[in-house]
């Protein structure tokens, strides 16, 4: 019998081990968070596309001035945080589906790290726009 041949590793039925464990526990919270962030992104991304019609092709001064306005800064921050939160939830499901074994946990942590850092970079950029607006006035 080679290593790759099917074999049973424990005396207890493997199906028995899998049965009766119930749900994972946090699935519902994840499902709700994904839906609520998706619904929030509908108005936020619509706002962003409208803004891009006003801003596409603009020069540096115009973009900084736009990002420094309180309403724009608020909407932009909300959009960035919700986008990368939703991306984190979605990418996590993909990792859960396709990455197994030892690589699973590190990959999940990397996904969290990168989406969080990208979101933070966006928020910091908005803070700089607001600060630039304060200097001018």
């Amino acid at each position, binding site marked *: 019998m080679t290593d790759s041949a099917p074999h049973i590793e424990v005396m207890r039925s493997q199906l028995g081990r899998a049965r009766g464990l119930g749900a994972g526990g946090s699935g519902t919270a994840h499902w709700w968070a994904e839906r609520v962030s998706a619904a929030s992104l509908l108005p936020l991304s619509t706002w962003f596309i409208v803004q891009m019609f006003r801003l596409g092709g603009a020069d540096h001064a115009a973009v900084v001035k736009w990002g420094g306005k309180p309403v724009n800064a608020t909407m932009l921050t909300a959009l960035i945080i919700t986008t990368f939160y939703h*991306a984190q939830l979605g990418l996590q499901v993909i990792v859960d589906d396709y990455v197994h074994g030892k690589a699973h946990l590190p990959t999940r942590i990397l996904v969290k790290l990168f989406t969080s850092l990208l979101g933070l970079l966006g928020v910091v950029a908005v803070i700089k726009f607001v600060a630039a607006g304060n200097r001018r006035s």
Partner: protein
Amino acid sequence: MQDIRKALYVGTRSDGRLIERPMSPHLQIYRYRLSMVLSISNRLTGVAATGGAALGVFWLAAAAKGPKAFATARKVTGNPVGQLLLVGWLASVVYHTVGGIRHLIWDSGKRYDKEQLNKDGPVAVGVTAGVSTVLAAGLLGVAAKRARALAKAGKAS
């Protein structure tokens, strides 16, 4: 046992020998259906939209860094390759939005029958194509016009 799903993969033949039970068939075996393409597309466009959002954040960061960095960003967004990426980002976001709205409708228990699913699929493709084309043409047109006007005024940073 590493993977709990393996519990279901081992079976016994009538002569008592252990065999690996067949797993569910894969893409080469299933007959092509639009619904399966649309399903995986929702995932792929989600990943693509995340990549686009990352580029969008870099654009914001370039503007926050200063005029020089933003001039580089403008070179990217004004370049044909950059514009292709922007259109790809836009189309991904539009399709992921359409797919997401369909998921929300399914979650409410509606339009989830086989006939309805097969009827709505082509509509989703049509809406995505239409909205993406209109938005992409509009945005690129407006941006190019504004950039030209700025260049004419002689002070494009």
